[in-house]
């Protein structure tokens, strides 16, 4: 005869209510795990989807995700010449916050892709197509809420959404949008006509004040578009992404590039480390701590519940001892009830999680391994808390039955 099932059935509504409460608590534990994983996934989704083997950044910076990095745009050409380098692409990114004509705020990280080498074909595009024109097209992440074909004015130009990606957030949690490199730079460096006019005037004034001002050709030039001035050169980029020829060891290429005094080279794994160890570290630790705390709270609560359930039937336990029940029968009953409670709560948590986590604002990533880990934790908590009940049961005195 199964005593635990009969005991549970006897006051089933109370047991179920307890299980539901515990289940909701476990749902939060699961949610914390999912948010923790989501933070890591979000932070690394962009570098992962770009699929670079090595990242060249400004010397001694931890860029381009963890901090600002500026390298000259001809670095792409220099790197391409290194033996073992199969592909070199420039990368620029900056976060902008604008408003759509209808007043809706629009905040995203604009990423520049090397035209025509990288059209965004490697990105997880769920609708639409990669970039096909050198200008005025963009791919945006679905979390931005824009639709295919939508036209967004940025600076002095209007860009058309030609593709939608999924799950590509920048390390700050903002959605990404992809442009050609020059478009991205244009958006980044967009200034008003008046600012350009003032800038050119100031430049001409500086030239005239120096010895250079004796050359009338130079004075004339200084008032023109900055890009046309040989001394000023093209705009810098954030980083250069390299892909290595198959069969060539990554370390060799990295060591060789490391010799260049103007740059620092990170592998993809090192970039991961920089992002997780820097950009999202505090959030990650915070959530991790919160999750740990919730597990402890669940354990304490469950211990209390099992203890109370044992105390509630201490008379029956004393009676069972008097009837000569083996200790394993009594302890088994307590353990089974704890496992049953934990099991129901766990199943509830998984079911609720399956429905609820989709409507969370941040990404919640739950894989089977995380569900299994939670199951392990629940079983451990159940066993530990039944130990508290068992201790009480072992102390139950058959004399209490006589005294009653």
């Amino acid at each position, binding site marked *: *005869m199964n*005593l635990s099932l*009969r*005991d549970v*059935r*006897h*006051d089933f509504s109370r047991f179920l209510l307890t299980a539901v409460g515990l289940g909701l608590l476990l749902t939060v534990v699961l949610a914390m795990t999912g948010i923790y994983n989501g933070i890591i996934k979000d932070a690394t989704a962009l570098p992962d989807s770009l699929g670079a083997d090595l990242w060249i950044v400004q010397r001694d910076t931890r860029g381009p995700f963890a901090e600002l990095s500026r390298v000259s745009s001809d670095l792409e050409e220099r790197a391409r010449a290194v033996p073992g380098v199969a592909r070199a692409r420039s990368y620029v990114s900056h976060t902008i916050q604008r408003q759509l004509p209808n007043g809706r705020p629009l905040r995203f990280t604009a990423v520049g892709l090397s035209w025509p080498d990288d059209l965004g074909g490697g990105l997880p595009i769920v609708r639409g197509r990669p970039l096909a024109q050198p200008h005025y097209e963009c791919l945006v992440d679905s979390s931005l809420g824009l639709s295919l074909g939508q036209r967004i004015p940025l600076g002095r130009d209007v860009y058309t959404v030609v593709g939608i990606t999924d799950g590509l957030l920048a390390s700050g949690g903002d959605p990404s949008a992809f442009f050609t490199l020059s478009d991205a730079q244009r958006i980044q460096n967009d200034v008003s006509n008046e600012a350009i006019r003032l800038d050119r005037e100031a430049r001409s004034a500086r030239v005239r004040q120096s010895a250079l001002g004796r050359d009338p050709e130079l004075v004339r030039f200084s008032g023109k578009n900055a890009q046309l001035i040989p001394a000023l050169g093209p705009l810098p980029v954030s980083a250069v992404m390299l892909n290595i020829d198959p069969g060539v060891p990554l370390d060799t290429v990295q060591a060789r590039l490391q010799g260049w005094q103007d740059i620092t080279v990170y592998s993809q794994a090192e970039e991961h480390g920089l992002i997780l160890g820097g950009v999202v570290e505090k959030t990650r630790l915070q959530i991790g701590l919160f999750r740990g705390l919730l597990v402890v709270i669940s354990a304490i609560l469950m211990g209390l519940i099992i203890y109370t359930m044992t105390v509630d*039937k201490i*008379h*029956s336990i004393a*009676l*069972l*001892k*008097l*009837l*000569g*029940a*083996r*200790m394993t*029968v009594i302890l088994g009953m307590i353990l089974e009830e704890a496992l049953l409670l934990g099991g129901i709560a766990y199943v509830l948590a998984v079911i609720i999680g399956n429905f609820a986590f989709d409507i969370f604002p941040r990404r919640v990533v739950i894989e089977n391994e995380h569900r299994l880990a939670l199951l392990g934790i629940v079983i451990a908590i159940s066993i530990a808390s039944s130990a508290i009940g068992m201790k009480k049961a072992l102390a139950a005195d*058959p*004399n209490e*039955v*006589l005294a*009653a």
Partner: protein
Amino acid sequence: MSDPIPAVQARSLSKHYGEGNTYVLALKEATFQIHPGEVVALLGPSGSGKSTLLTILGLINPPDTGWLQVGGVEVIRDGAVVGDANLIRRRNLGFVFQRSNLIPFLTAEENVRLVLELDDVPRREAVRRAREILESLGVADRARHLPMQLSGGQQQRVAIARALIHEPSLLLADEPTASLDKELGRRVMELLRTAAIERGAAVLVVTHDHRALDLVDRIFEIEDGVLDTEGAKLRGATR
């Protein structure tokens, strides 16, 4: 009393509680025997040692000294339990108390057959025997009721069934009729007596109810821990 082997045989059972100022000798050198099917009443004023004797016989509290044999098997030697006390309780002892005898989350039938199932008797046989004994005690129609759905008298009858189903050598009862009214108490005592005799159990029943003494075979009297197994005085007065 024709049976040559007594159901219970006790020699020099003594028990004290406390030390120094609080020292109480609750049982002094109790020696007696009870035969199968024999019903013995244990009478005595409050604090005289009745429960103490019962808990020693029930292997709940060990005596200081003494020797005890139940169902022909030695269970206490020199004040210590010999063998597995749980096993002896499961096989050879039955208990009925004043009240709260039953496990509240089990039905009457489950309470009764629990004793058998704790000793690994197959479920089918346990169910059959439980129905049988509930029938003989007149509560078969309440087999599927939970204890709280039963009256006091019904609860005590189920408790008696529970105490006797495994055919123990010794049934220990501590004021089993105290919470019942006089008529009902007497009826329950009659049932207890009949069921015990049918199953060959020796019964030691603590009672304050002198009016039911005509239902017992012998009377033990206890005062200040001293057991008088003749109980001659009371017996003469009531019969």
